[in-house]
């Protein structure tokens, strides 16, 4: 029997790696993928908690998270496509108009 703490540890590692990737990478697409990694780490933590507490509600929430993530991916990619059409680049170090 694997304790939930082991799954939580993996979820923590994945989430931290997602944050790390988001800050290290400089193209919008890969940063967006890093966000997906973070969402998945949260899902893993939710399921580990659901197993630990014996409540099925955790699994329901995971389903909602997956659906919301799908919607978010669609909108996010559409915005990235728009940025690429207007600026011909998705490198974040070339997109700094909002820097003060």
């Amino acid at each position, binding site marked *: *029997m*694997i*304790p*939930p*703490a082991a799954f*939580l*540890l*993996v*979820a*923590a*590692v*994945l*989430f*931290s*790696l997602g944050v*790390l*990737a988001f*800050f*290290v990478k*400089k*193209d919008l*697409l*890969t940063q967006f*993928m890093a966000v*997906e*990694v973070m969402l*998945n780490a949260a*899902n*893993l*933590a939710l*399921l*580990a908690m659901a*197993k*630990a*507490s*014996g*409540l*099925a*509600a955790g*699994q*329901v929430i*995971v*389903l909602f998270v*997956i*659906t*919301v993530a*799908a*919607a978010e*991916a*669609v*909108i996010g*990619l*559409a*915005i*990235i*496509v*728009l940025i*690429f*059409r207007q600026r011909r680049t998705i*490198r974040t170090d070339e997109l700094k108009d909002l820097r003060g």
Partner: protein
Amino acid sequence: MAWAVFVILSVLCIGSVLAMIVSRNQAHNALFLVLAFSCLGGLFGLLDAPFAAAAQVLVYAGAIMVLFLFAIMMFNLREPAPREKRRLRTLLAAILGLVLFAELAVAGWRAVAPGSASPAAPDGLAGLGRLLFTEYLYAFEITSLLILAALVGALALAGKKEGA
């Protein structure tokens, strides 16, 4: 046995996310992510959540990553991203990641450690469906609206012809 599967899946998952950080080719990144999400689906299965595991593989490793690959091919970036030059930024990000990891590990440990007595197992797929269509019915219906809004929004944003 379960431990062996757990260790293999976790190492594959974390390793492919690490490879995504190191690799500079976007298409490779997306494929590493497909591997990571498939392994994560296996981990979901280990947690007695077969439906979440199936949704993970179908929706994440399947649909969402295909969407990413389509986007990558649309951008058609020939050359890989240039080498990251700013060491300071990488160092700061690594420190941030380590601190965050320590915090999460402590929080997770505290959340699980006291109630180590394992209660009754969740009552399977039927219970999940019942919960989804009774207690969480509104959330479920609103989700369908959300997906419709995302569909229309994506079309409105990116559906126009180039230069129109």
